[in-house]
């Protein structure tokens, strides 16, 4: 995951109409889609809703001028745990259906049910919409802008300040992590190399983790001291300049939210 940190931020620094949108607009839009997709109860209607939302996402992605490969690569990294849970669904009954019809019988009494496949499809539809909009948000918005947007939207300073600092130091520790990994590689150490004794590998990883912990603590101490020197105190917070939304940004947000809410209600109420 940490390897992708730099590439995600690199794409977020590009420019396009979506990149230039205020981070608040993108954040609210993402939250609105995710809440709408999750809030609709598990039913086949979710698939229709997901198709509409995915087309909306595809349009926004096209406007962002980011390559489709970027989306595909990030999707592959996110999928595993969710896909495991989704694929597993087809073999088990769940409480959202009363009757289950087996469509495939496998050895050891394992059966695939039509209703379970439908439920797995519903979960997949919701899941893919949610992560697609998260990928869009983080690929078109700088991390610091995201934190500032959260602050402008009312996230307490007790959170924006540590979150902002954490994001800043993520890159410091990502660099450190890559250097440590290179240092281990130059010494021909691979934690997954089964030719090395398992205990030895575990010991080295443990020491490395302890060392990263100590270094991050020491970095924290240095940062805290240097902040104190610059007048940091109990009442300090992240400075956020007033930045009202442009009229077209506000209009885009209003139209998008209206579209999301309308589509959700119409599809949910449809017979």
């Amino acid at each position, binding site marked *: 995951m940490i390897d992708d940190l730099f590439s995600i931020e690199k794409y977020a620094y590009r420019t396009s109409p979506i990149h230039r949108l205020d981070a608040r607009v993108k954040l609210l839009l993402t939250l609105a889609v995710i809440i709408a997709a999750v809030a609709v109860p598990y039913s086949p209607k979710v698939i229709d809703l997901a198709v509409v939302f995915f087309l909306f996402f595809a349009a926004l992605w096209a406007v962002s001028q980011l390559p489709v490969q970027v989306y595909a690569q990030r999707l592959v990294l996110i999928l595993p745990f969710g896909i495991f849970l989704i694929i597993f669904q087809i073999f088990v009954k769940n409480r959202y259906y009363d009757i289950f019809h087996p469509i495939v019988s496998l050895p050891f009494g394992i059966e695939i049910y039509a209703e379970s496949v439908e439920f797995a499809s519903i979960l997949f539809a919701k899941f893919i919409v949610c*992560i697609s909009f998260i990928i869009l948000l983080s690929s078109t918005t700088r991390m610091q802008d995201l934190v500032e947007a959260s602050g402008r939207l009312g996230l307490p300073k007790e959170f924006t300040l540590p979150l902002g600092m954490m994001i800043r130091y993520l890159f410091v520790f990502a660099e450190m992590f890559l250097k440590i990994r290179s240092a281990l590689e130059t010494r021909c150490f691979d934690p997954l190399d089964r030719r090395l004794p398992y205990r030895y590998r575990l010991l080295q990883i443990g020491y490395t983790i302890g060392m990263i912990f100590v270094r991050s603590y020491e970095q924290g101490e240095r940062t805290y001291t240097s902040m104190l020197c610059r007048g940091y105190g109990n009442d300090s917070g992240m400075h956020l300049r007033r930045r009202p939304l442009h009229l077209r940004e506000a209009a885009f947000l209003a139209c998008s939210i209206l579209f999301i809410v309308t589509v959700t209600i119409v599809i949910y109420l449809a017979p």
Partner: protein
Amino acid sequence: MHIPDAFIPFPQAIVYWVIALIFIALALRWARRSMGEERVPLVAVLAAGIFAIQALNIPIPWGTSGHMVGAALAAIVLGSPYAGVFVLTLVLLVQGFIFGDGGITVMGANIINMGVVGGFVGFYGYQAVSRLIGNMYVAAFVAGWASLFISAVLCAVELAIAGTFPLDLGLLFMGGYHAIIGVIEGGITAIALYLITSARPDILERPQGVTG
């Protein structure tokens, strides 16, 4: 163990968020009172370090790799279960919003599983075993193992309540898997604690692991 969006129905997700917010508020109060509000940046930088720690591949005996959670380690070293809650909340926010690892609506559940359970089981498990046998490294091992195992069991229970994964299979697969890789989390926690006590014993809030 990061539950993605859609696997917990919205009303249940809100309940988990409310519970998580209570613990987050308590963690913020801990940070202000115990560490001094101005020292909050120290925990923020530490959270970035924990994020890097989670990126390190840890070998699993049957050939795959896993990742450390680190809530128990943070709670033990900083001497409070709320350290685990605070650090893991920051880490999960970044993982959810930037990397898509773990959902947004279900983030409350993820914070409870990894931050709250990881921090509380890690810290109090460490204290209890320390008192019982007097060896801080064995205590750290047990605490690290228990924090991961109980987090996984809770995750399986939440998915079962949501109706998206059967309880028996959830306990078998997630509980069983994490019972095994929990041994590695425990081992790494103990080794890392050994290194920290050797290199910077002053960092530990409670070097003997026992409170008065």
